[in-house]
């Protein structure tokens, strides 16, 4: 049965000595923690180990949790840092899609269209695999921010704090990551681009709806 207590109440119960209460937090957050470390570390077996490591760190550090941020933010921060540390330890080669000009400055990729993609074209299983593959293909610094934002639901401010970045940098990276994901999905033929005719047809349909 789902534990209806708030995170803060469960944390207090654990601090009062009820270690079993921690299980409610594990059940509540294991999916997101697992997916966070999986997307950042990119390996299922390692993600499992890292998930265990994350929760163990949280348990051990619970008494130092001051409640300055929400508990979920705290968990995702630990998850992200644990996965990033693991990546650095492993020094795995990552696919760099960084786009730089001659001065070495990053610049935003020109995207053909920022509108939605027709995801209904793909079956859900293929679609999920495509998204995972695209996320995995992002460079680490983009992958981390987009996962924290879109999977973990962290605010720009919390991501900035967690990653030691400014809020502006976080927003910029997230925008770039979104753009790159879109581009990757299009380039990988995961989604078919709409034809001009289809787009015009859609626009006409929308216009009719508005008029109605």
């Amino acid at each position: 049965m789902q534990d209806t207590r708030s995170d803060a109440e469960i944390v207090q119960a654990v601090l009062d000595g009820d270690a079993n209460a921690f299980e409610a937090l594990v059940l509540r957050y294991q999916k997101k923690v697992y997916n966070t470390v999986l997307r950042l570390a990119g390996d299922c077996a390692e993600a499992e180990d890292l998930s265990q490591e994350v929760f163990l760190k949280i348990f051990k550090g619970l008494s130092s949790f001051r409640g300055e941020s929400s508990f979920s933010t705290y968990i995702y921060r630990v998850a992200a840092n644990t996965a990033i540390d693991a990546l650095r330890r492993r020094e795995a080669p990552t696919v760099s899609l960084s786009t730089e000009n001659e001065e070495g400055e990053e610049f935003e990729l020109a995207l053909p269209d920022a509108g939605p993609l027709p995801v209904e074209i793909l079956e859900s299983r293929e679609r999920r695999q495509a998204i995972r593959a695209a996320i995995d293909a992002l460079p680490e610094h983009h992958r981390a921010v987009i996962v924290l934002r879109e999977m973990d639901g962290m605010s720009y401010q919390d991501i900035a704090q967690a990653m030691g970045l400014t809020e502006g940098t976080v927003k910029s990276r997230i925008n770039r990551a979104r753009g790159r994901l879109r581009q990757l999905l299009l380039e990988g033929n995961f989604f078919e681009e709409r034809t001009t005719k289809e787009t015009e047809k859609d626009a006409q349909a929308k216009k009719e709806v508005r008029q109605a």
Partner: protein
Amino acid sequence: MTCEEVKRSMELPLEWHTSDELREMWRHIGLCEDCSRAFGWQFQLWWLMQDAMEEPPPGLAERIMIDVKAAQPDKVRSLPWWRRRKALAALAAALAIAVFSPVVMRAVQSGMASEQNVQQNVLQGQTQDSGVTGPVASSFLLSSPAEDTSDGGFSEDGGKGAEGTVLGLQQPGSFAQESENAAIAGNGGSDRTSPVAENDLFVGTQGAWRTYAAAKHMLVDWRAFLPTEFVKDPSQVTLVLYVTLPPENYIEHVENDAADCYVLEAVGGYALYLVQD
């Protein structure tokens, strides 16, 4: 929903919105070309990433809990030491308790009540007069210590007695005796059928030493975490208290020339060791 409202909503993580709000936003984005261009992919990507999340492997939570339970004793770890020589450590500790409680104690003292007495109490479920009253958080004990009517030990008035009052504090030996009683008591007037409940930890005896855990707050043997670089012999330890507030909240109150004070981070709080020279 207006374009401006959609824009504001898209600034926040989409997960923070209700499903109705999300439906409204998506509906607007689907109909508004400007918003579709500005937020269509952002919205869709969020949904795709949520959808792409994988289920954790079966048994992950159980394995995590095994790790957590195995790690429990390690939760007591050394903090940077406060090694202070200050006046009247026992009094100060009691002040700290009175002022900053809730406190859980598992006091230890050599030369205390005989093991036979203790065991008799446990077996018979007798409540001895406990000096632990008001300031001790009842949630940490198995029944409310307020049921104890003894005037020994700590003052019922909590913080009132802190200003230079002796608080009924007795010599360390008798304090420990009371704490010990409190730790094993808590059954007076309660509906417990046994004085030793599931979470009570009767650690046992070692020579003249007896240790007791008050309820579930502390589940490790403090002796395993003795600051051996400073404490060579457990008999140097006058008493061990468990407090829930960080040491900086009371350390200045520990003034003692006769004893040193050490603080360890413990389960759910801090262990305060008072060590005689």
